[in-house]
């Protein structure tokens, strides 16, 4: 235990702790939106499309995360636009952008002379190497998301629950869809450094799956997701330190185990509650 507390003396660990905390907030809120609206597949497409931006960043020598943000938001709006306006099948549009982004990423990284530093940390993430500036971007995003959801909560729910009904009420459905999908893209890209492209979707869905076992209300689900996300990240981080394994994978593994355990406990105690109800009448 003292060893673990001593960890806080290391700057990199304090950064990792903060990154886990802020990542949990952004993924908790945005993930609840993603799961509720059933846009997990769209989010997967955005995630992988953003790899194109990372590759271009390497080749042209700008910050790969900047490229990823541009690719993420453009593909997010692209999917919205193509499926609603150009009458393209939504899943096909997603698959095209998904693989196009990956292909561009691979091509540009291949063309970049020499070794591509940190490439693995974009694919699999490394919470221990999150830089101060990345932490500040993540913090700004978290503050913005919290503000946005506090101010527009009712409208977000209105537009998300029954889009057609919202349209008949002249609500700004498309504007909100576009804003929210852009926030989804930003959240995904800024969390890529924490758990990586391949694993970021799980940070947006597993805490929500756990929260959904306890509540079926949007607001409470957001809060529980943040708590479980943080719990899983910290435990995973600690495990990665103790066993010297990659942090991203350790975090996701912890979250899945947590989900499994709680689900089993619910199944057993749920049966007990059902039996009690039967006895009582």
């Amino acid at each position: 235990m003292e060893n673990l507390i001593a960890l806080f003396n290391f700057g990199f660990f304090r950064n990792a702790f903060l990154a886990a905390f802020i990542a949990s907030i952004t993924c908790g809120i945005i993930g609840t939106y993603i799961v509720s609206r059933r846009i997990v597949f769209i989010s997967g497409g955005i995630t992988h499309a953003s790899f194109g931006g990372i590759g271009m960043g390497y080749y042209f020598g700008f910050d790969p995360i900047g490229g990823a943000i541009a690719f993420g938001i453009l593909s997010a709006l692209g999917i919205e636009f193509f499926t609603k306006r150009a009458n393209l099948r939504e899943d096909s549009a997603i698959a095209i952008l998904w693989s196009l982004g990956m292909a561009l990423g691979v091509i540009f990284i291949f063309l970049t002379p020499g070794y591509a530093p940190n490439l693995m940390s974009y694919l699999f993430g490394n919470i221990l190497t999150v830089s101060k500036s990345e932490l500040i971007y993540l913090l700004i995003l978290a503050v913005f998301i919290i503000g946005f959801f506090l101010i527009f909560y009712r409208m977000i729910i209105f537009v998300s629950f029954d889009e057609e009904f919202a349209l008949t009420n002249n609500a700004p459905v498309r504007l909100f869809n576009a804003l929210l999908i852009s926030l989804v893209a930003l959240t995904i890209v800024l969390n890529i450094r924490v758990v990586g492209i391949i694993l970021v979707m799980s940070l947006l869905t597993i805490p929500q799956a756990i929260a959904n076992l306890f509540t079926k209300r949007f607001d409470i689900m957001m809060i529980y997701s943040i708590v479980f996300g943080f719990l899983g990240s910290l435990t995973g981080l600690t495990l990665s330190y103790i066993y010297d394994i990659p942090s991203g994978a350790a975090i996701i593994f912890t979250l899945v185990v947590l989900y499994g355990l709680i689900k089993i406990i619910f199944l057993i105690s749920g049966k007990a509650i059902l039996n009690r109800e039967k006895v009582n009448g």
Partner: protein
Amino acid sequence: MWLWKTNYSHIKQMDSIVEIRKLSAGYGQNIILHDVNLSIKQFDFIGVIGPNGGGKTTLLKALLGLIPPMSGEIVYDESMTEGKVHRIGYLPQINNIDRKFPITVFDVVRSGLMSRKRLTGRYSSEENNRANELMSEMGISGIRNKAIGELSGGQIQRALLCRALVNNPKLLILDEPNTYVDNRFERELYEKLKILNNKLAILLVSHDLGTISTYVKSYACVNGSLHYHSGNKVTPELLKSYECPIQIISHGEIPHTVLYNHKS
């Protein structure tokens, strides 16, 4: 700008609350409704019947402003418009609703008031009271804090009906309210509609001609075009305008279903 919904409708002062004039509507290149005329008056109770794919849903979407007319127009009376929103209550088909969405009954009902709100709107206590009143009228105040995923089809339908009514509409549009709902609730619903009809006009889309014939005052048969029949008698002419076998359920000693011969 594709981000904003365009409001297609015209507002005038007239005898009917809504008038559809020479309307053609559809999707893309596909025209589904041709030359439709219909005027809806204050206390009308119109049963909209017709085969699947005949354009019932297209008609509703045009009335609700979800799709623009390809030609012709829909004119709304002044009294039908409040701010920038038409006073139309809409009950969608229950399978259009995502039952896993994490939202409570109370929030579903209150969301019917959102058109009055600014983007950041909160509900006033007056509005909460109105929602509560409606819920107890419909017998769902006991489940107001439950998530919709925990409810039966009939309960969800009641919540959606409250949502449609909470903003005091002058026209209530119901899209196949009798699907996935048990018979007892269906009867209750129609009795409720009969009472509501004293205050507002109703447009009821249904495939069950037999049951609604007791309640509606007139029919609109939609099959590419629209034929209007006043009176609630199911006549051979009415059935002919369908041009398709439809189901009539007669109640008798032995439950049976009568199908009209298909026009070959």
